[in-house]
């Protein structure tokens, strides 16, 4: 008789405040319900106030793991990207969010972890260790990352250069990366605005790419980032 295999939750043994900030966090039933309810709420809001349209869902890989990268110009981006995925993927999808904005206090960390299902990326103190943890989790599990490789929201609506971080996650792996373009989020809620305006938003998914041939070093990371930046630009131009 073979031995049973147990695999405790990645964040087992951590206190709640540390669990919310853990890159190994795995939600259970309560967080799945909270996150599902949040997606239903924001999905309804996006449809009613922004006539949210989604194109190219059929291009998404049939199952995790994969990464979705998109342009970033508004707080609405992460909501739209999460809601844009088919419901079966939602509990697997982790938006990578700025740690210093969403995970600084216990209250915001709890909200970001429980409702947004976000994982923190600390912009000022993000070491290679954190990227390595995210990469291992991606390769070894059924995880989907929602990522904005520009690193911050665009202040004028124009897309900035993609940073090499996305390359550190996928270079030399067989994990597909789906380029996506969000249109209308900047007009609806630019970084300077406190409240959104009811203008249309659309999301378009592109064809997934695999970077198994890219080297896992600086040159390879830049190559991945540049290729994806070009794809997201092309999706935007085609809109």
């Amino acid at each position, binding site marked *: 008789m073979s031995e049973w295999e*147990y695999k*405790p*939750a990645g964040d087992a*043994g951590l206190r709640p405040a540390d669990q919310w900030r853990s890159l190994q966090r795995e939600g259970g039933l309560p967080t799945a319900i909270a996150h599902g309810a949040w997606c239903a709420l924001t999905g309804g809001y996006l449809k009613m106030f922004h006539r949210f349209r989604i194109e190219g869902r059929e291009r998404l890989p049939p199952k995790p793991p994969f990464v979705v990268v998109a342009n970033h110009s508004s707080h609405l981006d992460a909501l739209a990207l999460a809601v844009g995925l088919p419901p079966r993927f939602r509990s697997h999808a982790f938006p990578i969010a700025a740690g210093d904005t969403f995970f600084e206090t216990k209250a915001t960390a709890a909200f970001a972890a429980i409702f947004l299902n976000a994982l923190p990326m600390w912009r000022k103190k993000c070491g290679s260790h954190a990227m390595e943890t995210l990469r291992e989790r991606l390769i070894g599990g059924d995880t989907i990352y929602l990522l904005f490789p520009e690193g911050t929201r665009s202040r004028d609506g124009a897309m900035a250069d993609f940073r090499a971080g996305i390359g550190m996650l996928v270079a030399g792996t067989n994990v597909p990366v789906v380029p996506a373009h969000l249109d209308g989020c900047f007009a609806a809620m630019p970084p300077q605005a406190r409240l959104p305006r009811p203008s249309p938003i659309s999301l378009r998914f592109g064809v997934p790419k695999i970077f198994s041939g890219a080297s896992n070093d600086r040159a390879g990371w830049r190559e991945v980032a540049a290729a994806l930046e070009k794809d997201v630009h092309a999706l935007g131009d085609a809109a």
Partner: protein
Amino acid sequence: MSAFAHPATVGITIFMAALLAITPMVFEVLQRRGRLTPVLRQELYARYFSWLVLVPIMVVPILLGRLWTISAFGLLSLFAYREFARATGFFRHRLLSAAVVLGLLCLIAAIADHWYGFFSALPSLFVSLLVIVAVVEDQPKGYLQRVALAIFGFALFGVCLGHIAYFANDANYRPMLLLILLCVELNDVFAFCCGKFFGRRKLAPHTSPGKTWGGALGAFVLTTALFAALGHSVFAGTLLAAPIHLVTMGALLSFTGQLGDLVISSMKRDLGIKDMGATIPGHGGLLDRFDSLLFVGPALFHYVNYFVGVGS
């Protein structure tokens, strides 16, 4: 009915408060006599500070009323199951895990409704349901493990803990539950202290290296004596006030309490983890603290129910 209508409720509550008040003094006396190492002192204080929070969390719902008590034990049952599911990785089987949670909620509802027929029907109904739901994944690989973990979680954290909560349907529930909680927790303290002072032979070195025969026997004697002494007032006027019943119940409580501890230790060794969680500083997870309650519930419930009836 007033929270303090039964004199034993007043007595046990005051006894608990007094214990909490004198504990730091005992630590300081031991410290002055050189019986505490800095590490042991730190560990004892960490546990003590946790007790300062845990005791009111346990006692206040019992004093507030029946539904408060059932809700508190219901939450304990749900959180204990959560720790188990996350430690084993069983939580990843979402549908099956949801079926277990539904089973726990049904048990809580049956207890709240004082519907013993439904409460006793639920184990067979939910075992059947879990066995069937596990088929839905259409993954024969690991089927037995999934089903076994589901039934284990439902039985231990639902059915067993549910028996403790069911006491809340008895008119005399406040002193009975306070007595059980006090004795179960002191049983652990007695085992710890007796083990420290005259424990030599290991009880189950592979399962729980810290436990000794000296600790276990010391706790058995002291807890049985304490239960019999306090229980005389709690069960006054009933058949169970007879010394033979009080001693039997005390012995049952101490024995099953220590077995609960060993069962959870065994589970942790199998999983290769130190604690079931990190909810309570100094104690680990809820299951690390309330493990001793698991089998005390069914044992005492059926004993009391057989001789005088619970909630009848």
